[in-house]
């Protein structure tokens, strides 16, 4: 199942490289009168080693953008590139293995397979690819998220925060080109949420990972190095080194 051609190369991973790109992406739903434009000619790049947050009011298209770039949804027009692979040219099977080998996911809920232990969940993508994970890296990831004594537990035996940490570890374990997080703290209390966000920031800062996070929480967004603001399917603004207050202010003007 493994496809060596798609393995990341150093040129794609190095500082300054672009992990993922959307080029003139259009996404519409329905036809004729009921036609809704979710993404209106969006172009955006996600450089490697960056933590980017995508914000916007409900219906702004932020989740759709993430789904399209992550290869979970197809686009109506335009291009989506992970490294230099154009997702819009791939069939389901190639898209699936690309997600498995080069993208990490953290969802808001239903992140873990209930029948597998924490460790099995963490190594799930590589197991699906029939590969052994990189032991050294795995040990570091597990240490980073602090799950050492919980690895044999099933998700039902873990708290919500612990479950999300397992999900973060899974996303990191495969050393993907890019990790997409969809409201990863949406179901957590503020303390557990802060913990997860801190892990994600460390993953970027210390482990050199690339993370794109969709959120509506200004505090969560403030953990990122860059915030993109979406409204009506368009990127309307960008903020470097955000603070919760500035993000909140910007969002208020969008929702007004």
């Amino acid at each position, binding site marked *: *199942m493994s496809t060596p051609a798609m393995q990341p190369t150093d040129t794609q991973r190095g500082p300054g490289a672009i992990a993922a790109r959307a080029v003139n992406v259009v996404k519409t739903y329905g036809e004729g009168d009921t036609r809704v434009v979710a993404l209106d000619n969006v172009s955006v790049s996600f450089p490697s080693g960056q933590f980017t947050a995508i914000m916007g009011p409900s219906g702004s298209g932020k989740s759709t953008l993430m*789904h399209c770039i992550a290869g*979970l*949804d197809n686009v109506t027009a335009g291009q989506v590139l992970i490294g230099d692979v154009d997702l819009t040219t791939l069939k*389901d*099977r190639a898209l*699936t*293995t690309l*997600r*498995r*080998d080069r993208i990490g*996911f953290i*969802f808001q*809920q*239903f*992140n*873990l*397979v*209930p*029948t*597998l232990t924490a460790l*099995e969940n963490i190594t*799930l*993508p590589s*197991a*699906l*690819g*029939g590969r052994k994970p990189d032991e050294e890296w795995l040990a570091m990831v597990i240490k980073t998220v602090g799950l050492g004594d919980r690895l044999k537990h099933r998700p*039902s035996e873990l708290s919500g925060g612990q479950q999300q940490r397992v999900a973060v570890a*899974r996303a990191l374990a495969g050393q993907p080109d890019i990790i997409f997080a969809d409201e990863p703290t949406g179901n957590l209390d503020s303390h557990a949420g802060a913990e997860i966000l801190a892990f994600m920031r460390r993953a970027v800062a210390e482990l050199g990972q690339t993370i794109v996070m969709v959120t509506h929480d200004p505090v969560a967004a403030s953990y990122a190095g860059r915030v993109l603001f979406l409204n009506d399917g368009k990127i309307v603004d960008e903020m470097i080194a955000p603070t919760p207050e500035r993000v909140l202010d910007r969002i208020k003007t969008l929702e007004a």
Partner: protein
Amino acid sequence: MFRTALKTILARKLRLVTTSFAVLLGVAFMSGAFVLTDTVGRSFNGLFDDIFKNTDAMVRSSQKLKTQGGDQRPRIDAAILDQVKRADGVAAAEGFVQGYAQIVGKDGKAIGNPGQGAPTFGTNWVEDTKLNSFNLSSGRAPQTPDEVVIDKGSATKGKLNVGDQTTVLAAAGAIPVKIVGIAKFGTADSPLGATFAMFTTPRAQEVVAESGKYDSIGVRGKSGTSQESVRDSVQKVLPAATEVVTGKAVTKENQNDIKKGLKFFSIFLLVFAGIAVFVGAFIIYNTFSIIVAQRGREMALMRAIGASRRQVLGAVLIEAAVVGVVAGALGLFAGIGVAIGLKALLAAFGIDIPAGGAVILARTVIASLIVGVVVSVASAFFPARRASKIAPIAAMRSLAHDSSGRSIARVITGILVTGLGIASLANGLFGHKGNKLGQAGIGVLVVFLGVTILGPIFAARLSGIIGAPLPRLRGMPGTLARENAIRNPKRTSSTAAALMIGVGLVGFIAIFAASTKASVNQSLDRAFTGDYVINVNTGGFGGLSPQLAASLKKVPEVAVVASGRFTPVEMSGTNAVLALDETTWGKIVDMKVQSGKLTDLSTPDTIGVYKDEAKKKNLKIGDTIPVTFLKSGKQPLKVVAIFGNKDLTFGNYVIGLPTYDKNMQEKFDQLLYIKKVPAVSAETARAVIEKATAAYPLAELKDNAEYKQSVAKQIDQFINLVYALLALAVIIALFGIANTLALSIFERTNELGLLRAVGMTRRQVRTMVRWESVIIALLGTFLGLVIGLFFGWALVQALKSEGINVLKIPVVTLAMVTVIAGIAGVLAAVFPARRAAKLDVLQAIAST
């Protein structure tokens, strides 16, 4: 509430269909069995109405012997006919002669097979056109002893025409005949497939019956006289030991006999229908359990906003009732198709039954609907009650995982129910009271129930063991398949239980068949010292003329010929004894006579008894036992031999040919054991024996190995029919697996979405679902085989005294069953797997 229930059903039409299907198939089988037997019954009723249409009264012997096929009566003196003709009000009277005869077709083969299909008759051609049920369609009536009229059906099948020379096989041997006429039965070519060779009366008496005797006398009254008055006036002229009945009465008698015979047949089919319905009930139970679990939150919400427990219970039961009505109604109509299929199936196994247009009685309609509804509602009751017990607060909680099913209460109930089943089975097999077959059957069902109750306790561990190689064989999808099979032991085990029933019965039958074959072989090896066997299977009707045995005895290359005849009798403990050639039998079959002598059976009215039976009844040499024969009635037989080996005696009693000849009217051999002169080579012996049997197409010479093979083949044929009938139960169980998988997949939508998102390919999804299915199927197979083994063992123990004394486990067959079950699991997973693979990833992630 009713509307809510209906809306729920309509919203999930597909599930309604698949759920209904499980019951529908069983109901269709049941309705098909009814339709088929009712149709056959009506055909026969019509037949007898036609035969006795112009018969006002029938004269016959008042003596009778009860046999399985109805009463048999001895023949009456032909001289009675003249007296009957002179009775008041009689317009015409004719003597009827009837016996076994088979017409040989153009290709040299005998037409028809009375052992498996319609009977083959030799009769006299009745001159009175109104009392004769046949009418000539070409040619003329027989006038000389070598002339016959045959039925048009036989003429067509045997490619015979008026003017042809052929042979008729009968008691008197192979009779060369010339066909002078072809007759139709009313407008039909032959009555329900029976064949008729019709001779002149004296010739018919001579070759198929007895000279100077009639089986019965048919009487036609003068016009304007009632059947009753004809009967009464004939009654006045009859001698002792004869009786007269009206045409209506004799028609009714015949119809009732057929009805009784058909009842056995219909019960046989209904047993399989019952098994199918039973399996269907499991599926309903399962489906509703899963539905209730999945809809728990919705139901809790209903309770929270004010629905009472009864209303929740009612809503679920209404849904079940709708499923039942749909299943019952569709099953009823599908039954007509099933009836046609069953008829074709039976025909493929050599059992040809006549049937006209489909007969659907009110009973069939009512039974189908009631079974459909009752089975559905009863099976859904427990899940419904569980639903009604959901606390309103559950609406606010997320659904807990079902980890119940390992309680002490379950262990105790399961063991109790299983024990009860075993007790009932043991009572049926080894007890002496009541309906033994019924007790054993109920025991079997209850054991299945008990094991099903116990199932969840070991289902997880067993599934884990069965699925153990999967992670290595199929990687992550294999691991997940195994985990999915384990995660809900109750669901897995009750789904597997449905398959367990079918496989259990198949395994049981396979073991029983293998043991029977092995026992027959062992009997032959132990007791048979001869070289060849000739046996005819004509279902107790006709056989080989004793002339064959006589002529074989004269062949110099043959050392011993011993013939045997199955003799219907009425006596305590059995309804048939073996009549054997007492002069030669001992030289070819080792009966281990312990006291007396086998050759003493040469004195008429003597009998030999098996040692255990003699002990049980406290019989000694010189004691007498009353035995009722067809011709002579009740006779005291003197015990002259007690034997220690009943391997080849087909029962506990034997009589000699002189006793047989004195008390029976038909003289047919059904069995010939032959031993060649040792010095003669097998080839030579075979050649000369086959030359002697050439004139008897029924006589098929088999050496020891061939005979064993032919017995095995006969057993296999029956077993294969049973397998075919059990196949439905297995198919229903597969629907159950498919249904459970589909519901599980629906339940695991989010999980599947996640797996797809993080990189599980569609093919891997299908692999995962497929192997979960295979694990469930193999779990059911394993449980089934264990139970089947137990049942097989129990039955063989019970039949020890009947000569089944070897327990043989057909390993290859059982291995094949396992492989087939695995493949069936793959098939059951096809649709659920496809559905799972096609899930839209985004929707799956998004749905909550």
